[in-house]
């Protein structure tokens, strides 16, 4: 079912449902990943996996990544396929909903950014800006399951 779960990002505890995002992404994953010609590069996992992020840094990285996807990625993923566009809209609006929940932790200073997480996010941005914007956005969208797996 649309399972709300309590996510622990360091001190930050947020109740969120990932099910609808998962369903939406699973429906378009193959199509999106097929549009990504550069398979040797990763936006989220280069050079280090998200799994190396310390627990205390999880909230900051998640906060940054939500903003990254909402501000930079989704808007450059428009396709000629109406079905794909509708699913991307569904994911983007769900991200907006989650971003709002995480902001509460940010406002309660439970989402502190230490140097390591800042560096990690800078690396992700560098990976992103190393490609042309459409390729970078499609690749980032195609890697959404990396983020979802790491969050869960």
């Amino acid at each position, binding site marked *: 079912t649309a399972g709300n779960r309590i996510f622990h990002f360091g001190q930050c505890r947020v109740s969120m449902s990932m099910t*609808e995002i998962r369903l939406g992404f699973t429906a378009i994953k193959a199509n999106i990943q097929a549009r990504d010609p550069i398979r040797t590069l990763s936006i989220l996992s280069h050079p280090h996996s998200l799994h190396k992020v310390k627990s205390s840094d999880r909230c900051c990285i998640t906060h940054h990544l939500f903003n990254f996807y909402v*501000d930079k990625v989704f808007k450059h993923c428009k396709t000629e396929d109406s079905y794909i566009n509708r699913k991307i809209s*569904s994911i983007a609006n769900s991200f907006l909903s989650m971003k709002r929940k995480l902001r509460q932790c940010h406002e309660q200073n439970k989402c502190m950014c230490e140097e390591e997480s800042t560096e990690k996010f800078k690396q992700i941005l560098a990976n992103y800006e190393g490609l042309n914007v459409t390729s970078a956005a499609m690749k980032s969208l195609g890697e959404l399951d990396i983020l979802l797996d790491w969050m869960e």
Partner: protein
Amino acid sequence: DALLPTPQNISILSTNMKHFLSWSPVIVQGETVRYSVEFQGEYERDYANESWIPICECSLITATVCNITEDISATVAYNLRVRADVGTRRSEWGTMKGFFNRITTSLTPPLMKVIADGYHLFVELEDMGPAFQFCVLYWKKGQESRVQQKVVKEVSSVVHLDTMEAGPDYCVKAQTYVEAINRSSSFSQTQCVRAQGGTSMWLV
């Protein structure tokens, strides 16, 4: 070509997380009017240049209702609009007044059937879709202070609640819970049954 009238009375009927957009028909004598629907989530409004997304199942349809459940898939504010077409003639977009957020859906109590099979108490719940869970309360009649609760996350055919003693009535009621919007329905009517040897016995 003269502009067609804009579709009016655009509204949403939302029950149990099923959302239907409807509008008044545009009347053009001797012509078949067709309608197209588009939606805009908060993301499109705030981050994607106020773009609109067509719902292809409701493109150039003759009906004046569209199932938008599939596209209202986040708990944010959505805008909806409808346009009319007759041949080469077209109307302006008619936009629904105000936003729609699925958190406002109306939740009805679940249909429920309580079964006493010998000394076993079962409940059969309506399958209302993946977004729904159920909270089932059951108690011995007269012992309302000792209510027991069972949360049913996945609707299988029948749910076993308890093993009953012979004699007293056992009463059951249920409500739905939708985690995506963190809301519950009101409780269903209470149904009571009694164990009777090997036969099912109904007492409503």
